[in-house]
Protein backbone atom coordinates (compact mmCIF):
# COMPACT_ATOMS: atom_id res chain seq x y z
CA UNK A 1 0.00 0.00 0.00
CA UNK A 2 1.28 3.47 -0.83
CA UNK A 3 1.50 5.64 2.26
CA UNK A 4 0.39 9.28 2.20
CA UNK A 5 3.91 10.64 2.76
CA UNK A 6 5.29 8.75 -0.24
CA UNK A 7 2.86 10.34 -2.72
CA UNK A 8 3.98 12.96 -5.23
CA UNK A 9 2.80 16.58 -5.27
CA UNK A 10 0.73 15.75 -8.33
CA UNK A 11 -1.02 12.83 -6.57
CA UNK A 12 -1.55 14.73 -3.33
CA UNK A 13 -3.10 17.76 -5.00
CA UNK A 14 -5.56 15.45 -6.76
CA UNK A 15 -6.53 13.81 -3.46
CA UNK A 16 -6.79 17.16 -1.70
CA UNK A 17 -9.04 18.48 -4.45
CA UNK A 18 -11.17 15.35 -4.33
CA UNK A 19 -11.51 15.64 -0.56
CA UNK A 20 -9.92 12.20 0.04
CA UNK A 21 -7.14 13.74 2.10
CA UNK A 22 -6.54 16.82 4.21
CA UNK A 23 -3.37 18.81 4.40
CA UNK A 24 -3.28 18.08 8.13
CA UNK A 25 -3.24 14.33 7.40
CA UNK A 26 -0.33 14.81 5.00
CA UNK A 27 1.64 16.92 7.47
CA UNK A 28 0.99 14.42 10.27
CA UNK A 29 2.09 11.55 8.04
CA UNK A 30 5.38 13.34 7.32
CA UNK A 31 5.91 14.15 11.01
CA UNK A 32 5.28 10.51 11.96
CA UNK A 33 7.70 9.37 9.32
CA UNK A 34 10.36 11.76 10.65
CA UNK A 35 9.73 10.41 14.16
CA UNK A 36 10.35 6.87 13.01
CA UNK A 37 13.35 7.34 10.67
CA UNK A 38 15.18 10.63 11.26
CA UNK A 39 17.16 9.43 14.29
CA UNK A 40 18.93 7.18 11.81
CA UNK A 41 19.14 9.61 8.89
CA UNK A 42 19.61 13.07 10.43
CA UNK A 43 18.08 14.89 7.48
CA UNK A 44 16.47 17.57 9.65
CA UNK A 45 18.39 20.07 11.76
CA UNK A 46 15.16 21.37 13.26
CA UNK A 47 11.44 21.64 12.65
CA UNK A 48 8.51 23.24 14.42
CA UNK A 49 5.58 20.81 14.77
CA UNK A 50 3.08 23.42 15.95
CA UNK A 51 3.94 25.85 13.16
CA UNK A 52 3.76 23.08 10.53
CA UNK A 53 0.35 21.87 11.72
CA UNK A 54 -0.96 25.44 11.93
CA UNK A 55 0.06 26.01 8.30
CA UNK A 56 -1.62 22.71 7.35
CA UNK A 57 -4.88 23.74 9.06
CA UNK A 58 -4.68 27.11 7.38
CA UNK A 59 -4.32 25.39 3.98
CA UNK A 60 -7.29 23.11 4.70
CA UNK A 61 -9.39 26.11 5.66
CA UNK A 62 -8.34 27.98 2.51
CA UNK A 63 -9.29 24.97 0.37
CA UNK A 64 -12.65 24.61 2.10
CA UNK A 65 -13.29 28.25 1.20
CA UNK A 66 -12.71 27.45 -2.45
CA UNK A 67 -9.10 28.63 -2.78
CA UNK A 68 -6.62 26.79 -4.99
CA UNK A 69 -2.86 26.81 -5.31
CA UNK A 70 -0.25 24.74 -7.12
CA UNK A 71 1.13 23.60 -3.73
CA UNK A 72 -1.81 24.30 -1.45
CA UNK A 73 -1.27 22.09 1.62
CA UNK A 74 1.95 20.42 0.43
CA UNK A 75 4.86 20.28 2.94
CA UNK A 76 8.18 21.48 1.48
CA UNK A 77 11.44 21.22 3.48
CA UNK A 78 14.04 23.98 3.18
CA UNK A 79 17.83 23.71 3.03
CA UNK A 80 19.39 25.54 5.95
CA UNK A 81 20.87 28.19 3.63
CA UNK A 82 17.57 29.83 2.56
CA UNK A 83 15.94 32.50 4.73
CA UNK A 84 12.48 31.81 6.18
CA UNK A 85 11.10 34.61 8.34
CA UNK A 86 11.36 33.87 12.07
CA UNK A 87 12.88 30.45 11.43
CA UNK A 88 16.47 29.61 12.43
CA UNK A 89 19.13 29.86 9.72
CA UNK A 90 22.52 28.34 10.43
CA UNK A 91 24.01 27.18 7.10
CA UNK A 92 24.87 24.09 9.20
CA UNK A 93 27.57 26.22 10.84
CA UNK A 94 28.34 27.22 14.41
CA UNK A 95 29.16 30.76 13.37
CA UNK A 96 25.55 31.90 13.00
CA UNK A 97 24.72 31.09 16.62
CA UNK A 98 21.00 31.58 17.29
CA UNK A 99 20.31 33.52 14.11
CA UNK A 100 16.67 33.82 13.02
CA UNK A 101 15.85 35.27 9.61
CA UNK A 102 14.13 38.66 9.73
CA UNK A 103 12.65 38.14 6.24
CA UNK A 104 11.54 35.53 3.68
CA UNK A 105 13.66 34.64 0.65
CA UNK A 106 11.82 35.30 -2.62
CA UNK A 107 11.47 31.55 -3.28
CA UNK A 108 9.81 31.19 0.14
CA UNK A 109 7.43 34.05 -0.63
CA UNK A 110 6.52 32.31 -3.89
CA UNK A 111 6.05 28.93 -2.20
CA UNK A 112 3.76 30.58 0.35
CA UNK A 113 1.74 32.26 -2.42
CA UNK A 114 1.29 28.81 -3.99
CA UNK A 115 0.04 27.52 -0.63
CA UNK A 116 2.99 25.34 0.42
CA UNK A 117 3.67 24.45 4.04
CA UNK A 118 7.18 25.76 4.71
CA UNK A 119 8.50 23.11 6.94
CA UNK A 120 11.80 22.34 8.70
CA UNK A 121 15.47 23.15 8.20
CA UNK A 122 17.31 20.39 6.38
CA UNK A 123 20.96 19.48 6.80
CA UNK A 124 23.83 20.36 4.48
CA UNK A 125 27.57 20.77 4.28
CA UNK A 126 28.51 23.94 6.14
CA UNK A 127 27.84 26.97 3.87
CA UNK A 128 27.12 24.46 1.05
CA UNK A 129 30.80 23.54 0.84
CA UNK A 130 31.18 19.82 0.38
CA UNK A 131 29.90 16.77 -1.44
CA UNK A 132 28.86 14.48 1.43
CA UNK A 133 26.95 16.44 4.13
CA UNK A 134 29.71 15.35 6.53
CA UNK A 135 30.83 18.99 7.00
CA UNK A 136 27.83 19.91 9.14
CA UNK A 137 28.02 21.33 12.64
CA UNK A 138 24.88 19.25 13.29
CA UNK A 139 26.42 15.89 12.39
CA UNK A 140 26.37 14.03 9.06
CA UNK A 141 23.19 12.99 7.28
CA UNK A 142 23.02 9.37 6.20
CA UNK A 143 22.00 7.70 2.95
CA UNK A 144 18.54 6.12 3.33
CA UNK A 145 19.56 3.17 1.10
CA UNK A 146 22.42 2.25 3.45
CA UNK A 147 23.17 4.34 6.50
CA UNK A 148 26.90 3.58 6.36
CA UNK A 149 27.03 5.69 3.19
CA UNK A 150 26.85 9.45 2.68
CA UNK A 151 23.82 10.95 0.90
CA UNK A 152 26.15 13.21 -1.10
CA UNK A 153 26.06 16.97 -0.68
CA UNK A 154 25.99 19.74 -0.12
CA UNK A 155 22.15 19.51 -0.12
CA UNK A 156 22.25 16.05 1.49
CA UNK A 157 19.42 16.69 3.95
CA UNK A 158 17.13 17.93 1.14
CA UNK A 159 17.77 14.71 -0.84
CA UNK A 160 17.39 12.37 2.15
CA UNK A 161 14.16 14.01 3.32
CA UNK A 162 12.52 13.46 -0.10
CA UNK A 163 13.96 9.97 -0.77
CA UNK A 164 13.00 8.72 2.69
CA UNK A 165 9.49 10.21 2.36
CA UNK A 166 9.96 12.57 5.31
CA UNK A 167 8.54 15.37 3.16
CA UNK A 168 6.98 15.70 -0.27
CA UNK A 169 9.52 18.02 -1.88
CA UNK A 170 12.41 20.22 -0.77
CA UNK A 171 14.54 23.14 -1.84
CA UNK A 172 18.31 23.01 -2.13
CA UNK A 173 21.08 25.03 -3.74
CA UNK A 174 23.58 23.99 -6.40
CA UNK A 175 26.94 25.71 -6.88
CA UNK A 176 28.86 22.82 -8.48
CA UNK A 177 26.44 19.91 -8.26
CA UNK A 178 25.00 20.28 -4.76
CA UNK A 179 21.47 19.44 -5.93
CA UNK A 180 22.17 16.92 -8.72
CA UNK A 181 24.83 14.85 -6.91
CA UNK A 182 22.84 14.11 -3.70
CA UNK A 183 19.69 13.50 -5.80
CA UNK A 184 21.66 10.88 -7.76
CA UNK A 185 23.13 9.24 -4.66
CA UNK A 186 19.75 9.13 -2.86
CA UNK A 187 17.55 8.19 -5.83
CA UNK A 188 15.30 11.23 -6.31
CA UNK A 189 14.95 13.98 -8.92
CA UNK A 190 17.17 17.06 -8.48
CA UNK A 191 16.73 20.08 -10.74
CA UNK A 192 19.26 22.89 -11.05
CA UNK A 193 17.65 25.66 -13.07
CA UNK A 194 19.64 27.99 -15.32
CA UNK A 195 21.67 30.75 -13.65
CA UNK A 196 19.22 33.67 -13.45
CA UNK A 197 16.03 31.56 -13.76
CA UNK A 198 15.20 31.63 -10.02
CA UNK A 199 15.71 34.55 -7.63
CA UNK A 200 18.47 34.10 -5.07
CA UNK A 201 17.29 36.86 -2.76
CA UNK A 202 17.46 35.26 0.68
CA UNK A 203 19.94 32.53 -0.30
CA UNK A 204 23.11 32.88 1.78
CA UNK A 205 25.81 33.45 -0.87
CA UNK A 206 28.65 30.98 -1.34
CA UNK A 207 29.90 31.64 -4.91
CA UNK A 208 27.71 34.31 -6.45
CA UNK A 209 28.50 33.61 -10.11
CA UNK A 210 27.60 29.91 -9.68
CA UNK A 211 24.93 29.55 -6.95
CA UNK A 212 21.38 28.58 -7.93
CA UNK A 213 18.30 27.45 -5.97
CA UNK A 214 16.46 24.35 -7.19
CA UNK A 215 14.22 21.50 -6.09
CA UNK A 216 14.25 17.88 -4.97
CA UNK A 217 11.14 15.89 -5.86
CA UNK A 218 9.92 12.31 -6.22
CA UNK A 219 9.44 12.61 -9.96
CA UNK A 220 9.92 14.92 -12.93
CA UNK A 221 6.29 16.15 -13.01
CA UNK A 222 6.80 17.48 -9.50
CA UNK A 223 10.06 19.16 -10.57
CA UNK A 224 8.06 21.01 -13.24
CA UNK A 225 5.44 22.05 -10.66
CA UNK A 226 8.11 23.35 -8.28
CA UNK A 227 9.98 25.25 -11.01
CA UNK A 228 6.74 26.85 -12.19
CA UNK A 229 6.26 28.25 -8.69
CA UNK A 230 9.80 29.49 -7.99
CA UNK A 231 10.94 30.72 -11.45
CA UNK A 232 10.91 34.31 -12.64
CA UNK A 233 12.70 37.63 -12.42
CA UNK A 234 12.82 39.46 -9.10
CA UNK A 235 13.69 43.11 -8.57
CA UNK A 236 15.45 42.09 -5.35
CA UNK A 237 17.97 39.94 -7.29
CA UNK A 238 19.66 41.88 -10.08
CA UNK A 239 21.08 38.62 -11.49
CA UNK A 240 17.63 37.12 -12.07
CA UNK A 241 16.80 37.30 -15.78
CA UNK A 242 13.54 38.76 -17.15
CA UNK A 243 13.09 35.83 -19.54
CA UNK A 244 9.41 34.78 -19.87
CA UNK A 245 8.51 31.74 -17.74
CA UNK A 246 6.94 29.07 -19.97
CA UNK A 247 4.30 26.62 -18.74
CA UNK A 248 6.60 23.77 -17.65
CA UNK A 249 3.75 21.33 -16.98
CA UNK A 250 2.49 21.74 -20.54
CA UNK A 251 6.08 21.39 -21.79
CA UNK A 252 6.23 17.90 -20.26
CA UNK A 253 3.94 16.40 -22.85
CA UNK A 254 5.20 15.76 -26.32
CA UNK A 255 7.63 13.33 -27.77
CA UNK A 256 11.33 12.67 -27.96
CA UNK A 257 11.33 12.18 -31.72
CA UNK A 258 13.74 14.61 -33.28
CA UNK A 259 15.44 15.53 -30.02
CA UNK A 260 19.22 15.28 -30.34
CA UNK A 261 21.13 14.08 -27.29
CA UNK A 262 24.92 14.44 -27.08
CA UNK A 263 27.32 12.13 -25.24
CA UNK A 264 30.58 13.90 -24.38
CA UNK A 265 33.59 11.82 -25.44
CA UNK A 266 35.69 13.32 -22.62
CA UNK A 267 33.34 11.99 -19.90
CA UNK A 268 34.69 8.43 -20.28
CA UNK A 269 37.05 9.15 -17.38
CA UNK A 270 39.33 6.65 -15.61
CA UNK A 271 37.47 6.67 -12.31
CA UNK A 272 34.07 5.93 -13.89
CA UNK A 273 32.51 2.98 -12.05
CA UNK A 274 31.47 0.07 -14.30
CA UNK A 275 27.97 -0.19 -12.80
CA UNK A 276 27.37 3.56 -13.22
CA UNK A 277 28.64 3.33 -16.79
CA UNK A 278 26.33 0.40 -17.58
CA UNK A 279 23.25 2.00 -15.97
CA UNK A 280 23.68 5.35 -17.72
CA UNK A 281 24.42 3.67 -21.06
CA UNK A 282 21.20 1.69 -20.85
CA UNK A 283 19.32 4.89 -19.90
CA UNK A 284 20.69 6.54 -23.04
CA UNK A 285 19.71 3.46 -25.08
CA UNK A 286 16.20 3.83 -23.65
CA UNK A 287 16.07 7.49 -24.70
CA UNK A 288 17.15 6.42 -28.19
CA UNK A 289 14.47 3.71 -28.28
CA UNK A 290 11.94 6.40 -27.28
CA UNK A 291 12.86 8.44 -30.34
CA UNK A 292 15.87 10.58 -29.43
CA UNK A 293 18.79 10.87 -31.81
CA UNK A 294 22.02 10.15 -29.91
CA UNK A 295 25.41 11.38 -31.09
CA UNK A 296 28.89 11.81 -29.72
CA UNK A 297 30.06 15.34 -28.95
CA UNK A 298 33.30 16.84 -27.69
CA UNK A 299 33.86 19.14 -24.70
CA UNK A 300 37.63 19.49 -25.02
CA UNK A 301 38.28 21.50 -21.84
CA UNK A 302 36.54 19.07 -19.49
CA UNK A 303 39.76 18.11 -17.69
CA UNK A 304 40.23 21.74 -16.57
CA UNK A 305 36.75 22.18 -15.06
CA UNK A 306 37.51 21.12 -11.48
CA UNK A 307 40.62 23.30 -11.21
CA UNK A 308 38.74 26.26 -12.69
CA UNK A 309 35.82 25.74 -10.34
CA UNK A 310 37.90 25.49 -7.17
CA UNK A 311 39.68 28.76 -7.96
CA UNK A 312 36.55 30.74 -8.86
CA UNK A 313 34.29 29.28 -6.17
CA UNK A 314 36.82 29.73 -3.36
CA UNK A 315 37.70 33.27 -4.48
CA UNK A 316 34.02 34.25 -4.41
CA UNK A 317 33.51 32.43 -1.10
CA UNK A 318 36.40 34.26 0.56
CA UNK A 319 34.71 37.56 -0.32
CA UNK A 320 31.14 36.47 0.49
CA UNK A 321 32.00 34.95 3.85
CA UNK A 322 33.87 38.05 5.01
CA UNK A 323 30.51 39.19 6.43
CA UNK A 324 30.68 36.59 9.20
CA UNK A 325 32.88 38.64 11.53
CA UNK A 326 31.05 38.55 14.85
CA UNK A 327 29.55 42.04 14.54
CA UNK A 328 26.20 41.94 12.79
CA UNK A 329 24.95 38.46 13.44
CA UNK A 330 25.58 35.15 15.09
CA UNK A 331 28.25 34.08 17.51
CA UNK A 332 31.14 36.19 18.79
CA UNK A 333 34.38 35.34 20.57
CA UNK A 334 35.63 38.52 22.25
CA UNK A 335 39.04 40.07 21.64
CA UNK A 336 41.06 43.12 22.64
CA UNK A 337 40.21 44.91 19.40
CA UNK A 338 37.82 44.32 16.48
CA UNK A 339 40.42 42.48 14.40
CA UNK A 340 41.29 40.03 17.15
CA UNK A 341 37.56 39.53 17.76
CA UNK A 342 37.02 38.84 14.02
CA UNK A 343 39.88 36.33 13.84
CA UNK A 344 38.84 34.46 16.98
CA UNK A 345 35.17 34.37 16.00
CA UNK A 346 35.96 33.01 12.55
CA UNK A 347 38.56 30.57 13.88
CA UNK A 348 36.08 29.09 16.34
CA UNK A 349 32.94 29.42 14.19
CA UNK A 350 33.96 27.90 10.84
CA UNK A 351 34.67 24.21 10.25
CA UNK A 352 37.71 22.81 8.42
CA UNK A 353 36.33 22.78 4.89
CA UNK A 354 35.07 26.36 5.10
CA UNK A 355 38.45 27.48 6.47
CA UNK A 356 40.28 25.65 3.69
CA UNK A 357 38.16 27.30 1.02
CA UNK A 358 38.35 30.81 2.48
CA UNK A 359 42.13 30.53 2.80
CA UNK A 360 42.48 29.12 -0.73
CA UNK A 361 40.23 31.90 -2.08
CA UNK A 362 42.26 34.49 -0.20
CA UNK A 363 45.43 33.09 -1.76
CA UNK A 364 44.20 33.11 -5.37
CA UNK A 365 43.00 36.70 -5.01
CA UNK A 366 46.06 37.97 -3.14
CA UNK A 367 48.54 40.42 -4.59
CA UNK A 368 50.98 38.71 -6.94
CA UNK A 369 48.76 35.64 -7.51
CA UNK A 370 45.58 37.17 -8.92
CA UNK A 371 46.64 36.97 -12.57
CA UNK A 372 48.20 33.52 -12.26
CA UNK A 373 45.17 31.95 -10.62
CA UNK A 374 41.93 33.93 -10.56
CA UNK A 375 42.19 35.74 -13.89
CA UNK A 376 43.50 32.60 -15.60
CA UNK A 377 40.58 30.57 -14.20
CA UNK A 378 38.11 33.15 -15.50
CA UNK A 379 39.66 32.78 -18.95
CA UNK A 380 39.49 29.00 -18.84
CA UNK A 381 35.86 29.41 -17.78
CA UNK A 382 35.29 31.14 -21.12
CA UNK A 383 36.77 28.13 -22.94
CA UNK A 384 34.60 25.69 -20.97
CA UNK A 385 31.50 27.75 -21.68
CA UNK A 386 32.33 27.95 -25.39
CA UNK A 387 32.68 24.14 -25.49
CA UNK A 388 29.08 23.81 -24.33
CA UNK A 389 27.64 26.56 -26.51
CA UNK A 390 29.29 24.98 -29.55
CA UNK A 391 27.99 21.52 -28.57
CA UNK A 392 24.48 22.92 -28.26
CA UNK A 393 24.62 23.98 -31.91
CA UNK A 394 24.51 20.27 -32.76
CA UNK A 395 22.46 18.76 -29.93
CA UNK A 396 19.49 19.77 -27.77
CA UNK A 397 20.55 18.02 -24.57
CA UNK A 398 23.66 16.40 -23.16
CA UNK A 399 23.46 13.11 -21.22
CA UNK A 400 26.09 12.01 -18.67
CA UNK A 401 26.30 10.05 -15.45
CA UNK A 402 25.60 12.47 -12.57
CA UNK A 403 28.48 11.06 -10.53
CA UNK A 404 31.44 8.80 -11.38
CA UNK A 405 30.50 6.30 -8.62
CA UNK A 406 27.48 5.44 -6.46
CA UNK A 407 27.46 6.80 -2.88
CA UNK A 408 30.72 6.47 -0.92
CA UNK A 409 31.05 5.51 2.73
CA UNK A 410 30.91 8.06 5.54
CA UNK A 411 34.51 8.97 6.38
CA UNK A 412 35.88 7.47 3.15
CA UNK A 413 36.94 10.76 1.57
CA UNK A 414 36.75 13.06 4.57
CA UNK A 415 40.52 13.19 5.10
CA UNK A 416 41.37 13.90 1.47
CA UNK A 417 39.73 17.12 0.25
CA UNK A 418 41.18 16.87 -3.25
CA UNK A 419 39.73 13.38 -3.77
CA UNK A 420 36.33 14.70 -2.64
CA UNK A 421 36.62 17.61 -5.13
CA UNK A 422 37.43 15.23 -8.00
CA UNK A 423 34.13 13.38 -7.49
CA UNK A 424 32.32 16.51 -8.80
CA UNK A 425 33.71 16.07 -12.32
CA UNK A 426 30.37 15.65 -14.17
CA UNK A 427 28.32 18.31 -12.38
CA UNK A 428 30.69 21.28 -12.09
CA UNK A 429 30.82 22.49 -15.72
CA UNK A 430 27.06 23.14 -15.80
CA UNK A 431 27.47 25.93 -13.22
CA UNK A 432 30.58 27.37 -14.88
CA UNK A 433 28.74 27.51 -18.23
CA UNK A 434 25.42 28.77 -16.80
CA UNK A 435 23.31 25.82 -18.03
CA UNK A 436 20.36 23.98 -16.53
CA UNK A 437 20.63 20.36 -15.40
CA UNK A 438 18.64 17.57 -13.83
CA UNK A 439 19.55 14.26 -12.20
CA UNK A 440 17.06 11.42 -12.27
CA UNK A 441 17.19 7.81 -11.05
CA UNK A 442 18.34 5.32 -13.72
CA UNK A 443 19.34 2.19 -11.83
CA UNK A 444 21.00 0.64 -8.81
CA UNK A 445 24.40 -0.81 -8.01
CA UNK A 446 24.73 -4.43 -6.92
CA UNK A 447 24.87 -3.18 -3.32
CA UNK A 448 21.49 -1.51 -3.84
CA UNK A 449 22.71 2.10 -4.06
CA UNK A 450 20.97 4.44 -6.54
CA UNK A 451 22.58 5.64 -9.77
CA UNK A 452 21.67 8.95 -11.44
CA UNK A 453 21.46 10.06 -15.05
CA UNK A 454 22.28 13.71 -15.64
CA UNK A 455 20.72 15.68 -18.48
CA UNK A 456 22.09 19.15 -19.27
CA UNK A 457 20.19 21.74 -21.28
CA UNK A 458 20.81 25.10 -22.93
CA UNK A 459 20.50 28.25 -20.82
CA UNK A 460 16.74 28.65 -20.14
CA UNK A 461 16.12 25.29 -21.82
CA UNK A 462 14.29 23.75 -18.85
CA UNK A 463 11.28 22.79 -21.00
CA UNK A 464 13.31 20.42 -23.22
CA UNK A 465 15.19 19.11 -20.20
CA UNK A 466 12.04 18.29 -18.23
CA UNK A 467 10.24 16.82 -21.24
CA UNK A 468 13.04 14.36 -22.02
CA UNK A 469 13.36 13.44 -18.33
CA UNK A 470 9.61 12.93 -18.01
CA UNK A 471 9.36 10.76 -21.11
CA UNK A 472 12.20 8.59 -19.75
CA UNK A 473 10.44 8.37 -16.41
CA UNK A 474 7.11 7.37 -17.94
CA UNK A 475 8.87 4.46 -19.65
CA UNK A 476 10.83 3.29 -16.57
CA UNK A 477 10.12 2.70 -12.88
CA UNK A 478 13.44 3.50 -11.15
CA UNK A 479 11.94 6.63 -9.58
CA UNK A 480 9.21 4.60 -7.86
CA UNK A 481 11.68 2.52 -5.78
CA UNK A 482 11.94 3.41 -2.11
CA UNK A 483 14.51 2.49 0.55
CA UNK A 484 13.47 -0.03 3.19
CA UNK A 485 13.91 1.78 6.50
CA UNK A 486 11.89 -0.37 8.88
Amino acid at each position, binding site marked *: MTMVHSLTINQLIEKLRGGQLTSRQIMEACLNRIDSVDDKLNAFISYDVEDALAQADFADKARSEGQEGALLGVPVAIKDVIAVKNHPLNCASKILGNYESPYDATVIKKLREAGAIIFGRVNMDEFAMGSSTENSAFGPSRNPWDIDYTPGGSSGGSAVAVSADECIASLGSDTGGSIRQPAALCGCVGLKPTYGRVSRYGLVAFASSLDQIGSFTKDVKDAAIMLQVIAGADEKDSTSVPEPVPDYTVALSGELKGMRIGLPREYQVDGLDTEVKAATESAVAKLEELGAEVKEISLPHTE*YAIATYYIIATAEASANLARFEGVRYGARIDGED*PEEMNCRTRGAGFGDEVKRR*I*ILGTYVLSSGYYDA*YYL*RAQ*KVRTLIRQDFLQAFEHVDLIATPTTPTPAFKIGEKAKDPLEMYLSDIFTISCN*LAGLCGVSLPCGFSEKGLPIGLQLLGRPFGESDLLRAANIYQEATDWHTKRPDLD
Partner: protein
Amino acid sequence: MEIDISRLVKLARIELKPEEELRLAPQLGEVLGYVDKLKELNVDDVEPTAHASPLSNVLRKDELADSLCRDDVLRNAPESSNGLFVVPKIVE
Protein backbone atom coordinates in the same frame (compact mmCIF):
# COMPACT_ATOMS: atom_id res chain seq x y z
CA MET B 1 53.56 23.26 -3.17
CA GLU B 2 54.57 25.39 -0.14
CA ILE B 3 52.37 28.24 1.00
CA ASP B 4 52.85 30.83 3.74
CA ILE B 5 49.79 29.92 5.75
CA SER B 6 50.42 32.33 8.63
CA ARG B 7 50.29 35.29 6.21
CA LEU B 8 47.12 33.95 4.58
CA VAL B 9 45.21 33.42 7.81
CA LYS B 10 45.93 37.04 8.75
CA LEU B 11 44.56 38.20 5.41
CA ALA B 12 41.54 35.90 5.79
CA ARG B 13 41.08 36.88 9.45
CA ILE B 14 40.86 33.32 10.69
CA GLU B 15 42.72 32.36 13.85
CA LEU B 16 44.04 28.81 13.52
CA LYS B 17 45.37 26.59 16.28
CA PRO B 18 48.91 25.30 15.61
CA GLU B 19 47.57 21.78 14.97
CA GLU B 20 45.04 23.20 12.47
CA GLU B 21 47.84 24.94 10.56
CA LEU B 22 49.74 21.67 10.41
CA ARG B 23 46.68 19.86 9.10
CA LEU B 24 45.44 22.46 6.59
CA ALA B 25 48.77 23.64 5.08
CA PRO B 26 49.63 20.38 3.24
CA GLN B 27 46.00 19.97 2.09
CA LEU B 28 46.04 23.49 0.61
CA GLY B 29 49.41 22.76 -0.97
CA GLU B 30 47.97 19.67 -2.62
CA VAL B 31 44.95 21.55 -4.02
CA LEU B 32 47.17 24.37 -5.32
CA GLY B 33 49.42 21.80 -6.95
CA TYR B 34 46.36 20.36 -8.69
CA VAL B 35 44.98 23.70 -9.95
CA ASP B 36 48.38 24.48 -11.48
CA LYS B 37 47.05 22.30 -14.29
CA LEU B 38 45.48 25.44 -15.78
CA LYS B 39 48.98 26.67 -16.67
CA GLU B 40 49.06 24.04 -19.44
CA LEU B 41 46.64 26.16 -21.47
CA ASN B 42 47.50 29.21 -23.53
CA VAL B 43 44.85 31.79 -22.64
CA ASP B 44 46.59 34.91 -23.99
CA ASP B 45 43.78 35.85 -26.37
CA VAL B 46 40.85 34.67 -24.26
CA GLU B 47 38.45 37.09 -22.60
CA PRO B 48 37.68 36.29 -18.94
CA THR B 49 34.14 35.24 -17.91
CA ALA B 50 32.95 36.74 -14.62
CA HIS B 51 29.49 35.15 -14.80
CA ALA B 52 27.30 33.33 -17.29
CA SER B 53 24.34 35.72 -17.17
CA PRO B 54 23.13 37.48 -20.32
CA LEU B 55 22.56 40.70 -18.33
CA SER B 56 24.72 43.75 -17.80
CA ASN B 57 24.19 47.02 -15.94
CA VAL B 58 20.86 46.19 -14.33
CA LEU B 59 19.25 49.40 -13.11
CA ARG B 60 16.09 50.22 -11.24
CA LYS B 61 14.29 53.44 -10.33
CA ASP B 62 15.69 55.19 -7.26
CA GLU B 63 12.50 55.14 -5.22
CA LEU B 64 11.63 55.05 -1.54
CA ALA B 65 10.56 51.62 -0.34
CA ASP B 66 10.16 49.80 2.94
CA SER B 67 13.29 48.25 4.41
CA LEU B 68 13.75 45.79 7.23
CA CYS B 69 12.76 46.96 10.69
CA ARG B 70 15.91 47.97 12.64
CA ASP B 71 14.98 46.06 15.77
CA ASP B 72 14.44 42.87 13.76
CA VAL B 73 17.94 43.19 12.33
CA LEU B 74 19.65 44.06 15.60
CA ARG B 75 17.97 41.10 17.31
CA ASN B 76 20.57 38.82 15.68
CA ALA B 77 23.61 40.90 16.70
CA PRO B 78 25.91 39.52 19.41
CA GLU B 79 25.88 42.95 21.07
CA SER B 80 23.94 46.14 20.34
CA SER B 81 23.04 49.34 22.10
CA ASN B 82 20.95 52.42 21.21
CA GLY B 83 20.16 51.02 17.78
CA LEU B 84 23.82 50.37 16.95
CA PHE B 85 26.12 47.36 16.69
CA VAL B 86 28.70 47.29 19.50
CA VAL B 87 32.32 46.28 18.78
CA PRO B 88 35.44 46.28 20.97
CA LYS B 89 37.09 49.69 21.40
CA ILE B 90 38.96 50.86 18.29
CA VAL B 91 40.43 54.23 19.39
CA GLU B 92 42.05 54.68 22.81
